[in-house]
């Protein structure tokens, strides 16, 4: 469904990605784990066209994405919940969610999706008329994920969805990830919480300084020495 082939992305002269190749099959949950600054977010930005790769290709359902504008890519069925909760602070919660469905043509299907988001995050239902910027950090995180879901993407990119959420919600968010995956959405998940990510994912990639150093079934990665020592914090 999604394939990156030898992608090199630069910021100025700085090489952020040094030949990333990865694939995501339909209906999979694939997780990308790695330290801060390893290139996880850059990988997502490259897929969405926010930065252009200098070399290599990104294809989605057989169509080249590299070189397309971000809004075109979103219309093809990819949505992202960005790291750092880039919500619209002066729009209400409801307006933020409606913006998520901006590119959709099937207007009548939007209402049930809104209902689905509110079921997932009851807290958002309580705050529909509140301005996004006045929500707490964790609520903004919920809103960012909800907004991405409103696009009803076929591929959902999640950048650290558990960041800043309470333990009960971290559990919930990973259940939601599994749920929406079962409903047919393919997911590429970037997470610091490697343990949880590997528990819900089918496959995983480990990224270090812009390169993929390990890839395997998620269950096997959970058992690998490198992952246990470096990303799970076990001694």
């Amino acid at each position, binding site marked *: 469904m999604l394939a990156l082939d030898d992608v090199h992305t630069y910021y100025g002269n700085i090489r952020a990605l040094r030949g990333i190749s990865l694939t995501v099959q339909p209906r999979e949950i694939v997780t990308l784990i790695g330290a801060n600054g390893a290139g996880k977010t850059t990988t997502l930005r490259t897929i969405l066209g926010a930065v252009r790769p200098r070399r290599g290709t990104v294809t989605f359902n057989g169509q080249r994405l590299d070189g397309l504008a971000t809004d075109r890519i979103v219309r093809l069925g990819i949505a992202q919940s960005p790291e750092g*909760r880039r919500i619209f602070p002066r729009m209400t919660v409801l307006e933020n969610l409606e913006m998520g469905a901006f590119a959709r043509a099937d207007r009548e299907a939007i209402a049930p999706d809104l209902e689905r988001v509110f079921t997932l995050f009851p807290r958002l239902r309580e705050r529909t008329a509140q301005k996004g910027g006045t929500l707490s*950090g964790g609520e903004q995180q919920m809103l960012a994920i909800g907004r991405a879901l409103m696009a009803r993407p076929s591929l959902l990119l999640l950048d650290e969805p558990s960041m800043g959420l309470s333990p009960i919600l971290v559990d919930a968010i990973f259940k939601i990830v599994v749920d929406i995956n079962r409903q047919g959405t393919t997911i590429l998940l970037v997470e610091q919480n490697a343990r949880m990510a590997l528990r819900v994912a089918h496959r995983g990639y480990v990224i270090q300084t812009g390169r993929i150093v390990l890839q395997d079934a998620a269950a096997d990665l959970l058992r690998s020495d490198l992952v246990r020592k*470096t*990303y799970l914090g076990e001694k």
Partner: protein
Amino acid sequence: MTARRGLGGFALAALLIGYPFLDRALGLQTVHAVSDGMIYVLLALGLNIVVGYAGMLDLGYAAFFAIGAYAMGLLNSPVLGSPLYGYAWSFWLCIWIAAAVSALLGTLIGAPTLRVRGDYLAIITLGFGEIIPVAIRNLGDVTVEIGGWRPVERLNLTGGENGVNPVGRPYLPGVPFETDPVPWYFLILVIGLFSLWAMSRLQDSRLGRAWMAIREDETAADCTGVNPISTKLLAFALGASFSGFAGSIYAAKLQAITPGAFEFQVSIMLLCMVVLGGAGSLKGVILGAMLITLFDRVVLAEATFFLRWLGRSLGVPLLVTADLTLWRWFFFGLGLVLVMLLRPQGLAGRRIRPMLVPDTDDAVEVAPPPAPRVEAIPGWLRERAHRVGAAAGTGPILEVRGLVKRFGGIVALNEIDLVVPRGSIIGLIGPNGAGKTTFFNVVTGLVRPDGGVITFEGRPLAGLRPNAIVARGIARTFQSIRLFANMTVLENVLVGEHCRLRSTVPGAVFRPPAVMAEEARARERARGLLAFVGLADKDGDLARNLPYGDQRRLEIARALATEPRLLLLDEPTAGMNPRETETLTELIGLVRRELALSVLLIEHDMQVVMTISDRITVLDYGTRIAEGTPAEIQRHPRVIEAYLGTGYEPAAPGGAI
């Protein structure tokens, strides 16, 4: 390198001194234009303090230019009917009075307006810039009448529409200021060089850093101990005084001033100079001011001359009557658009490049942060801690009683009680939106409470601004990192020391030994703190270029630099991997143990909270639902229901899920 710089400096000095004579020898007659350009450099330098350093958009800066010029006119012209008429005030005295008057008016106008931010401030300055020329036009015929008594009758204060002509010139024995532009050139050159020198020293001082911190993030600056109001006011007043200085020289040089010379367009042109050259860069401002003035005064005039000659030679009547000087605003606008498109940081501005990963070829793992070591704790911080520890009472360091905060209909904090005993780590947890960050915001003075009492070391904190609370000894970090992104790592920590340093404007400019020593000590302390948090080799990097984990640690170093006794940490390990989290947890434990710091901690990583906290308070919907030891909290049914979830295993080995 130094030899080459020395040679370059010598060549520049020779050029600056030799230029007027070269001009005369070649018959170019550009000294007047260049001198005027230097007056604009002076103006642009002042505007650069306001716009480039402090980041406030000022659209009415020419008003201060006018005030300076009219102060000179009023004091040093024989034509006005002012009460000062007849006194031959010396030019050398008047320039200082003009600067002082402008600074005073800058303060008066700034005081009420600086509480508003961004666009609103720009609009207010715009209004002020319009008011001054109008006032000048209408003060040419002033009559004051109080019940038939006329203390002031038909007083010509400003010359009205006609302006002031003549304005007296400076007097130096044997120097022909009346007939020759060269003495003016040297006079303005000396003043300009002195200003430049003073400015470059200010830029690299406690005050310059405070201005830039305000520009980068006013709230974070406030919470780091920088008083935004007084800092911005100082920028406004200092910028105005430069303008007053330039205005008075301008009036005396031109020998005549009219209100038309200080219209809105002049403010815009000055802004163009700063932006074109590069806001915040001294070189850029000089370049911008000289380029625009010379283009206006020399290039356009010469080009018109050439075009007319061409028209006459070729017999094209359109060219014969062409006047390019009428197109000046067209060219300024075009130039500005091009610069913004091609080089948005300005011609000489610092280029800001993103830098995410070190550019090494081997795909080795990014080195994990070094574990914090007891030996790495800066000695001065430890000494201070012991001093404070010895002087400290036995009561709690922070005591919060019945704290209430409402936002509209929502009760964000409902009668919250919380006590932080001295030297303890208190965890503050709760579901998202429970009011944890709001609690921090109230304690640090960012948000005013609607009820309740906050007592820090036995004294109430009511009504204090964030920077005053920092000065009392409470420092914080932010949930979403708020560093001064375009300042270096070292500068970020130095801003943290701001409230513990004392240097003032004269001190920053003239640098007496006491200030030099203070600054050297501040830098040494900052480097020590950076080494302690594991950022020793990154002090020259821009904060924005640090990886996420380093940014979090830098924020803690900046908070420690304020010499706090209570540290509020808002989700310090969010977005960190387990290794980084572990190091940070050790660091927090270390500052508590070794520095006698008390810590209030918001954190969702239960591994961290449960191992490090002495006691934990749990909020839900703004209400305290539990308080107790970590063991009690983990078993508390309401906490499990609202926060931990049934999936939470208290004894999960190595996992925080």
